[in-house]
């Protein structure tokens, strides 16, 4: 057996192992991205932050769809870089003075005593630059993770998996998402038309000439959308009484609210973390239970619901592994801020972060364009 045939046999085997091309459940991508974002929030180690961004980038490059919004990662990465620049610049100009190795000194202005702690100009230390850079980078990576989630699964697909009890909310979100670009388009059109009327298109007078036709058109559009939804069976067989609907909606929102507050406290990482975990778990359970109970009685069905199979579990597990790494203290960020030194590679968290890139291979490939 020659080497090449052995090689092709191996690739053949690998191809058989790979799942059939399909779109991964959007929930799995968003959980995975949230795990990465959470990890980024928990560290200020520059190498690890960059690794997280790279991990997200690798997965996006391998598994993003073909829709226009699949460029979200690149766009938001650029926005992240701007964030870094702004953060560092602000720190240099008006930041808190950090003692340490002075790089250079800017002309300074004495601020009144009630602005104690802040400074305008003065000596700029390496520590100050490095730490503000880390803070900016953390934000940038967070934004990039959000971009990755958008590129891998558009929020509109996320709306589709909302529990049936939240169906109305989902419809409202989708309508709003299509409404904004339409509004922008009609602003452009009306601006052109007003210019051709010889009217100003800036200032207060211009605003009126543009706002009135745009808003009138938006209203007309809303009315025809409502008519279309009504004639296509929206709100039909609502079976449940108004009271029971209101009760389930309230319970559902309460559950989701608890989950959000819980998440916030867990991430905040203060002494209320236990309470946070309890709130998160209880809220999620409440929302799931209400959603399931109410959903079984709406009389609506779902066309081609997203499946949740083994690849989804694996993708979520990869994300969770990274998040766990940063939860249990392996994040290598010194409490007093970064020292003025070349960043060292923290091997274990680095390797564990790389686990987050596995979905680039284990998630099913995106179906080819038809």
């Amino acid at each position, binding site marked *: 057996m020659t080497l090449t045939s052995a090689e092709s046999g191996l690739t053949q085997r690998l191809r058989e192992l790979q799942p059939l091309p399909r779109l991964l459940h959007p929930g799995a991508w968003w959980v995975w991205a949230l795990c990465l974002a959470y990890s980024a929030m928990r560290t200020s180690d520059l190498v690890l932050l960059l690794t997280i961004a790279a991990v997200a980038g690798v997965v996006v490059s391998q598994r993003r769809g*073909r*829709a*226009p919004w699949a460029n979200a990662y690149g766009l938001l990465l650029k926005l992240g870089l701007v964030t870094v620049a702004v953060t560092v610049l602000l720190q240099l100009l008006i930041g808190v003075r950090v003692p340490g190795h002075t790089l250079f000194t800017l002309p300074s202005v004495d601020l009144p005593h009630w602005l104690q702690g802040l400074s305008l100009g003065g000596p700029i230390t390496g520590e100050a630059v490095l730490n503000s850079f880390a803070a900016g980078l953390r934000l940038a990576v967070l934004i990039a993770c959000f971009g990755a989630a958008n590129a891998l699964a558009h929020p*509109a697909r996320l709306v*589709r998996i909302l529990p049936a009890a939240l169906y109305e909310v989902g*419809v409202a979100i*989708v*309508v709003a*998402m*299509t409404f904004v*670009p*339409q509004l922008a388009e009609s602003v452009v*059109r*009306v601006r*052109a*038309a*007003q*210019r*051709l*009327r*010889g*009217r*100003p298109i800036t200032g207060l007078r211009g605003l*009126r*000439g*543009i706002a*009135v*036709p745009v808003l*009138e*058109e938006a209203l*007309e*559009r809303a009315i*025809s*959308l*409502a*008519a*279309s*939804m*009504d*004639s*296509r*069976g*929206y*709100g*039909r*067989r609502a079976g449940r009484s108004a009271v029971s609907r209101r009760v389930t909606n309230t319970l559902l929102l309460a559950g989701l609210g608890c989950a959000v507050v819980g998440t916030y406290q867990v991430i905040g990482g203060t002494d209320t973390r236990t309470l946070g975990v309890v709130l998160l778990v209880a809220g999620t359970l409440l929302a799931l239970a209400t959603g399931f109970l109410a959903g079984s009685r709406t*009389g*609506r*069905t*779902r*066309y*081609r*619901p997203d499946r949740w199979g083994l690849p989804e579990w694996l993708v979520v597990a990869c994300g969770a592994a990274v998040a766990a790494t940063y939860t249990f203290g392996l994040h290598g960020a010194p409490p007093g801020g970064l020292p003025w030194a070349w960043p060292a590679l923290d091997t274990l968290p680095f390797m564990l972060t790389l686990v987050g890139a596995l979905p680039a291979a284990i998630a099913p490939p995106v179906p080819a364009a*038809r």
Partner: protein
Amino acid sequence: MIDFDHVTVTYTDALAPVLSDVTAHVPEGELCLVVGGTGSGKSTLLGTVNGLVPHFTGGRLGGRVTVAGRDTRDHPPRELADVVGVVGQNPTAGFVTDTVEDELAYTMESLGLAPDVMRRRVEDTLDLLGLADLRDRSLSTLSGGEAQRVAIGSVLTAHPKVLVLDEPTSALDPAAAEDVLAAIQRLVHDLGLTVLMAEHRLERVIQYADSVLWVPGGGAPVELDSPAAIMARSPIAPPVVQLGRAAGWDPLPLTVRDARRAARGLAGTLPPAPPAAPSTAGDDLAAIASAVVVRYGSVVALRGVDVLLRAGEVVALMGRNGAGKSSLLRVLTGLTRPTSGSVSLGGADPRTLKGRELITHVGLVPQQPGDLLYCETVADECAAADRDAAAVEGTAAALLARIAGDVDLSLHPRDVSEGQRLALALAVVLTAAPPVLLLDEPTRGLDYPAKARLVHVLRGLAAGGTAILLATHDVELAAEVSDRTIVLADGEVVADGQSREVVTHSPVFAPQVAKILQPLPYLTVADVLAVLP
């Protein structure tokens, strides 16, 4: 299938009913065309079929409408979603989701159909309407014809017995309109669907109709009869019917093919060409665009286009959607800076003109005339136009009266009829007396009388020395009004010459009369009438 039983509709605050005492029965499996002027109550009549009138619009419904045995008084629109599919005038405004496949499934989801049934029906519908290649597309990227077919598909998946269509082809170019009509035709033939369709452009649809519901408006009784019977006496008729009436053909032909057979005798008696109409074109160049290139990123909208407009000349600009018509209009008005090439309006570059200077050089009536309007009443709008153009007070109002006759000046510009709104936009633009007038698709939603009035106004302006460029899909309008026709394709000028020569032999741009009398260069019924004894 659809029963109107003494139906009377009165909107809230209206003095007179929109429809009064309509009684008609549309049998199963028929394609019934609803014909009537603007504001005659056609849309209201369509709305009563699935209960949008009065459940959604308000107003009072007298009598009874029954669809497939269900009374619309007891069934709101959502409870009729499984028997009546409705597609409104602007299909994109009715889209609820964001991709083609989801949109097709939406109605079925509301009806609570089983997932495997939904899957099967979506696949069937994709094939039936030729949408299979579009299934993953975002709805915002569809062309007009595609959007219209998706909208029809999205109500069809519920397997309704009745399909209600309000002007399905009025915004489409001739080729896209053919696609949509072919799809509707297939539904009637293969599925036995009952279709109730309103359309102004009778020349496109009359040959498909099994019956015509004639809505005269103004309280006159509604009639349901065979297309030939209604066309024999209706004041609204396509050119083929007008020609048939003028020539006294019996039976009255409704299709170009029938008319051609009937015209064999007539063609022999006609002189080889109609008498040339006196041209109003002068020698002065009103607008010059030379070697204009416009590109948006990697898309080239215009590739080196040369266009001359002479004073007093009416030029039709034709071509399919996306051929570059709108880009050319934008370049001529200075809204878009050409990538290369130059534009001159009587010596001035439109990019350098601002405010009052611009509107005295060029006027554009956009595709949606409402974009120009922003005041609360027609009277305010006219006054604002006078101020903008520094014209004598009352100029705009006088122009409006000349173009549209009597218009209630206290109405909101959105509440006047489609034709009156166009007239108002035209009056606003003409207040500044621009030597170059551009119109983008002016005949959307106009009935034949309103179109005839527009033709009259444009000819009058041309006689006064205005250069007019008219971007349009309406071949009949172009034939009636234009001296010269420019055809754009893929950003290039593929034809530029006398309308008579350019359109006579084109299968797409030839008006009905030209198709009937081929190869004689007659374009309009008026051409023929002028030489008939």
